[in-house]
């Protein structure tokens, strides 16, 4: 299933690993959202998780993002088994290691673009000026420096998503998890966003995009196809991009 791919990346540093992970919802009528998944995400990877609705990709995203815990199995981030951590430690690990980008952008409406990006740096003991400088740097990286004082309602969908990307990268996380990042955008903005993701690739970081859009998945180096809570295929692009 995915063993070949896992084998091929084993020489790289594994940032995030799922080992025999299952996720079952409900007690009286159990629903198996994920069944015995094993997966490794390495530094430098640009991968996508694809599958139809109900295939378990959102559940996978929740687990990869430490927003949820598996029913069985182990999830490791930086070699730490997160299933053994309490909520405060998991939250801290999430804040330090994962950057999220959501389909609906999920920006805080009453904050400016700069304020939204800065939110990711709160409670880290950083002086305000330092926080602002970093947030402004992240906005510059996505080409939105000039819109830093605009609220989400004053920005286009593409700009909102780029702000969300700036928020995801400002903490310099190990893994960026993007949930249908182009789902609410037109083709032009979608391409622009995917170009930004491609430009964010580095040897220290992995980018994982969850999507049902095969065209979007086609832009990534590794594609993990899911069906009925299992990994159906885990394949590398013929020519790595």
């Amino acid at each position, binding site marked *: 299933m995915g063993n070949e791919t896992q084998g091929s990346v084993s020489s790289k540093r594994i940032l995030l690993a799922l080992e025999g992970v299952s996720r079952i919802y409900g007690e009286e009528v159990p629903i198996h959202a994920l069944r015995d998944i094993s997966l490794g995400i390495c530094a430098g990877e640009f991968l996508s998780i694809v599958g139809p609705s109900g295939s378990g990709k959102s559940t996978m995203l929740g687990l990869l993002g430490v*927003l949820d815990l598996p029913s069985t199995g182990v999830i490791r981030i930086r070699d730490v088994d997160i299933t053994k951590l309490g909520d*405060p430690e998991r939250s801290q690990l*999430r804040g330090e290691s994962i950057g999220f980008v959501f389909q609906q952008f999920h920006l*805080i409406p009453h904050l400016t673009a700069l304020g939204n990006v800065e939110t990711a740096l709160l409670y880290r003991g950083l002086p305000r000026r330092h926080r602002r400088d970093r947030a402004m740097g992240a906005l510059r990286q996505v080409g939105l420096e000039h819109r830093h004082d605009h609220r989400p309602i004053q920005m286009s969908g593409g700009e909102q998503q780029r702000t969300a990307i700036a928020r995801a990268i400002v*903490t310099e996380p190990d893994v960026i998890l993007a949930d249908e990042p182009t789902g609410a955008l037109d083709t032009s903005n979608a391409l622009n966003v995917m170009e930004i993701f491609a430009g964010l690739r580095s040897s220290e970081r992995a980018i994982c995009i969850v999507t049902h859009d095969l065209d979007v998945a086609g832009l990534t180096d590794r594609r993990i196809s899911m069906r009925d809570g299992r990994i159906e295929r885990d394949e590398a692009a013929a020519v790595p991009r």
Partner: protein
Amino acid sequence: MRRILDLLGVAVSGLTARKIRTVLILLGPILGVAAIVAAIGINESSKGDLKAKLRELGTDLIVANAQDQIGGFGGDPRIPADAANRVSRLPDVTSVSGTHQLSNIVTLPFEEAYNYYRAFPVPVIATDLNLPETLDVPIVSGRFLNRFDVTTGARVAVIGRDLADEYGYLSGELRTIELGGKHYGVVGVLDYVLLEPSMDSAVFITFANAIADWEEEEADPSRLYIRAPTNTRYVAQEIPTVVSLGGPDGANTNVPTDLLDAQSQVDENLNNLTKLMGGLALIVGGVGIANVMSISVIQRSSEIGIRRALGHKRGTIASQFLIEALAVGVIGGFLGAGVGAGVVWMVSEVRDYTMVLSISGLFRWSLVSVGVAIVAGLYPSTKAARLEPLETLRLG
């Protein structure tokens, strides 16, 4: 410290982002505190004149009246001079003055007024030299009686302020008045004596003159005024014993300001009822805070989910909402105190009251508002902290 500053910043930004909602939440504590402060303030201010008078008079003056221990009628009980000396040596007593009102003396400012002043006699009071000091009343013109007047037996008098007005006495004027046909030089005017208004239209002479001109046998007063700033009531209880020492002489004592004090306290029950009603208003305000904030938690569930996804801990989310509630309590409490104080000032102006407002009371009720807001914020903040980010973000 930075963490607290971050929390404050997020809470303030949360409150300012939704101004109408914030104003609605603030109304609870504002109205509650304003109602209590206004009701208590108006109640207190309506008694403000009495309280001001009490403050002016002090509550440490004791009056001791001579009393015949046997309880006979028609006698002329006195407090012997040596008993008065004993009273003055009590440790808590700072000043003592003895007086005795003489009877059957017709006082005339001028001859033509004989019939009027015979019908309405002016009190003539023999006094020692400490009276202004003990009563804490100044001389508004001239001087009070002194040791020279006593030793020489000079016929001099000090008059009360009302009497001075009635006589048309001018400050520094050389003037005599006639006491039972004997002329006394007026040497001074005593200011108003709030506790003994009868003294305002009295004539004061020395005991030496009383003995020489009016058949007094000894300089024994029938009344003592005693100033005891500490343990006033204890001293008042002890004086009869100190005066009598088991002998026939006796005295009963009272603290004249007690009556005023009682008058100013009569509405304590009303105050308590007001506090109870205000407390209920604050609790209703607290329920309002809990209610609106709970709705706000639902409305802001997406924001909470984002913050959790960004690594903010449950405790941080709870603190954020709790600080918002705290800010509502602080702002609402102090604004309410201000509004209440304004209402008290307005009513005092309209009704011509002496405005009475306790700053510590304003502060105390503001703090109660803060407490209510914190308790009210506990439920919504716990609810916010318990939200699962996965449920609020609606992935996929």
